[in-house]
């Protein structure tokens, strides 16, 4: 017997490997969730471009993937619609007592998905947690650090006390970190468990989570707006663009996030698919280093701005899926002056300005950009071509994204280049955040620019809740930034979504906060 086994050692070894493989396959085939067919409404699969957030606790993350998924698990006190209007959410009304005290009336008869009732205690718990020691270790606290205290005035009434005025607070209450969480559930199971087994008041509840692979949500029938139409939604994390498109084409997914601009024509040519472009808050500019020559000269900066035919770049490189901007904010941003025109394309004027500034033909300027951003790489190449036509030699320099944004740009002194790619999310849709972080002195991404008039305008708009006054302050600010060419605004991004023809009622969200409550599918 031993001899027989010894003779067939190779076969035994191979058999053991195959058995191990079968065991691993069997072990990872997870039990199916409740069939969507058993619940009326059907199911939908969404191909998610970003990686698994890994934690669905609202205080622990800022990723777009979290927003797309968890916007359907949680509710905030206010709700930002797919058309970016602020509406009542878990708060039915609110009133500012002064610039630092806000009182909110809460919605009655709302339940968390585990049956726990929503009330003022949940709101106090949520914000105590967000602003406490645990929240301070996460990325969301920075958005809400103006909140000094939240107290319950009654079962369905709360008061926010701020340490300083924050005119964007109402918008921020629709943000990730302000999603309301269940106190008893978290106290019972702890934050680590809550992060992978989240419970909210939203229209869908998480029923399955395979890390790095997928999240499955099922309809919460006691949702306060009424049950959603869909029975089940699956989010699959497919970060590779070509794979995600293949999934859409083969019907493996019904909705695709982030269709690459270069692949938009593939979707458009397929009669079973529907391309949905939507203007987003995301903007791009060429950052300019004002501490080193030649970009420390405003004439040179204006010459560069007028050398670039941005309309042609949008048409050819971005296939029309972008819009020109005059300041570093999109048309959806509160603070954008629609009457301020973008820099004109005028190469003759550009050459004249360079001559006036004493810049000799052939002068080199370095343009830094994120090497993995294939779209902006093409934009950068086009920009380099236009600069060459006015006598500037653009040296394109790619960098790793993290190093670029978090080491080189903050270092100033030309480390990121004379010009650099700079993208900005603008998630509050209010120019305040951008203005403070990019145009007030000694900020992380603004190591060099300082203008007392600009700082004064920003302080003024932050100190009032009056929208008209703030808007006028922003318009003045826009004009100064435009005239001084503090950065060269390029374009506002149009995001591309795609859906299968069986999907109905889906509105492509400008802010990537997918809203699935009204969505249905053909069976």
């Amino acid at each position, binding site marked *: 017997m031993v001899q027989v086994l010894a003779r067939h050692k190779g076969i035994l070894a191979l058999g053991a490997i195959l058995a191990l*493989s079968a065991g691993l396959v069997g072990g990872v085939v997870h039990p199916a969730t409740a069939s969507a067919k058993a619940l009326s409404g059907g199911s939908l699969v969404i191909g998610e471009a970003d990686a698994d957030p890994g934690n669905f606790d609202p205080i622990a993350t800022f990723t777009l993937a979290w927003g797309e998924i968890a916007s359907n698990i949680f509710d905030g006190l206010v709700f930002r619609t797919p058309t970016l209007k602020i509406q009542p959410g878990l708060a039915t009304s609110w009133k500012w007592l002064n610039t630092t005290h806000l009182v909110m009336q809460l919605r009655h008869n709302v339940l968390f998905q585990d049956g726990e009732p929503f009330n003022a205690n949940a709101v106090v718990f949520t914000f105590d947690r967000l602003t406490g020691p645990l929240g301070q270790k996460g990325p969301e606290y920075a958005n809400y650090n103006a909140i000094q205290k939240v107290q319950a005035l009654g079962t369905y009434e709360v008061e926010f006390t701020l340490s300083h005025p924050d005119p964007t607070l109402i918008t921020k209450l629709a943000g990730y970190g302000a999603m309301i969480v269940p106190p008893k559930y978290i106290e019972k199971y702890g934050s680590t468990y809550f992060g992978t087994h989240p419970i909210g008041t939203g229209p869908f509840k998480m029923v399955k989570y395979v890390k790095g*692979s997928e999240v499955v949500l099922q309809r919460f029938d006691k949702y306060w707006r009424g049950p959603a139409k869909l029975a089940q939604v699956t989010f699959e994390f497919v*970060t590779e663009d070509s*794979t995600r498109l293949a999934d859409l084409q083969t019907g493996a997914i019904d909705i695709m996030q982030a269709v690459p601009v270069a692949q938009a024509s593939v979707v458009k040519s397929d009669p079973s698919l529907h391309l949905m472009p939507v203007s987003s808050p995301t903007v791009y500019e060429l950052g300019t280093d004002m501490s080193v020559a030649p970009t420390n000269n405003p004439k040179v900066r204006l010459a560069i701005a007028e050398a670039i035919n941005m309309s042609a770049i949008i048409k050819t490189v971005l296939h029309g899926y972008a819009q020109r901007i005059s300041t570093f904010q999109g048309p959806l941003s509160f603070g954008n002056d629609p009457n301020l025109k973008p820099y004109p394309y005028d190469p003759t004027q550009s050459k004249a300005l360079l001559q006036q500034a004493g810049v000799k033909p052939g002068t080199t300027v370095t343009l830094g950009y994120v090497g993995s951003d294939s779209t902006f790489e093409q934009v950068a190449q086009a920009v380099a071509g236009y600069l060459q036509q006015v006598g500037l030699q653009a040296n394109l320099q790619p960098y790793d994204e993290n190093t670029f944004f978090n080491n080189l740009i903050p270092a100033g002194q030309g480390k990121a280049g004379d010009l650099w790619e700079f993208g900005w999310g603008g998630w509050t849709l209010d120019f305040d955040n951008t203005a403070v972080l990019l145009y007030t002195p000694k900020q992380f991404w603004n190591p060099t620019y300082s203008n007392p008039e600009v700082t004064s305008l920003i302080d003024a708009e932050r100190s009032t809740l009056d929208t008209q006054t703030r808007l006028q302050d922003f318009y003045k600010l826009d004009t100064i930034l435009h005239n001084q060419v503090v950065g060269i605004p390029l374009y506002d991004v149009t995001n591309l979504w795609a859906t299968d023809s069986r999907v109905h009622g889906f509105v492509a969200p400008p802010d990537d906060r997918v809203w699935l409550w009204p969505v249905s599918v053909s069976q």
Partner: protein
Amino acid sequence: MIWPLDLAWYVVRRLVNAAAVILLVSVVVFVAIRLTGDPAASMLQGVEPTRQAIDQLRHALGLDQPLWRQYELFLAGALHGNLGTSYDTGQPVASLIGSRLGATALLAVAGLVVGALIAFPVGIIAALRPNSLVDLGARMFALAGISFPNFWLGIMLITIFSVALRWLPASGYGTWQSLVLPALTLGLILSGIQSRLVRSSMLEVLRHDYVRTARAKGLKERSVIMRHALRNALIPVVTYMGSTFGALLGGIVFVEVVFSWPGIGSLAYQAVEQRDFPLVQGIVVVTASLLVLMNLLVDLLYLLLDPQIHLE
């Protein structure tokens, strides 16, 4: 003959060496990752923070403490099985790695099996018919396997088998169908060089006297090849497979990303991008430990294949 006591002592010595290697790796990765920049700024990049907010988060995470103190805390935790908490997700690193290791192990084993199933027949047949058209085809196949980038091959297989033929899914996890294309991608790449190795090793072995003797004794050719020649030809092949396990893990990263396979490779890619120090450290230490263990297993496998090998 190897005495059991000698073998036990050999394993103990190897394990002590392994511990020293893993400790050194932990120091190197701890220092290296901190040279890449500030994770606090990276974590907050999406929320557009003030400098004050970045400093506050850095303090909350203990990143403003001296380097030696940070390493001391990491090592103390690691010795108790606590690899820290991911900056990006706030989840325990050990739990994150544990939840992904199985997927990578499955893909690695499947890729190795596919690679061997292709490489062994191709290499053996090429060795039995040297300089023939079959041998030329085998060598070109090997060259293609070495040359093709694995991510490109993966995308090509998706284009053919998923999009055009609709036979297999382009992504996913949890079914045997979703394993086929990633395993095939990995296996095809591996089989390129493996088939070359099998061919050259077989050619070398077939020249030996004992093979000529076996044929002269009238044994069937199949028996000569499978029972006498192949076993000895396997030794350098096994050596290669063991020593390239590290490269295999590296190659798996691209395959996992292309096919959205939720393994340790794609997790590592994400962790490095996000400057998630604890997660990067944890992944490197765990994979270094697995590599060291793999090398030990390969060495022990030698003893099974060739009892004449001495423990020294």
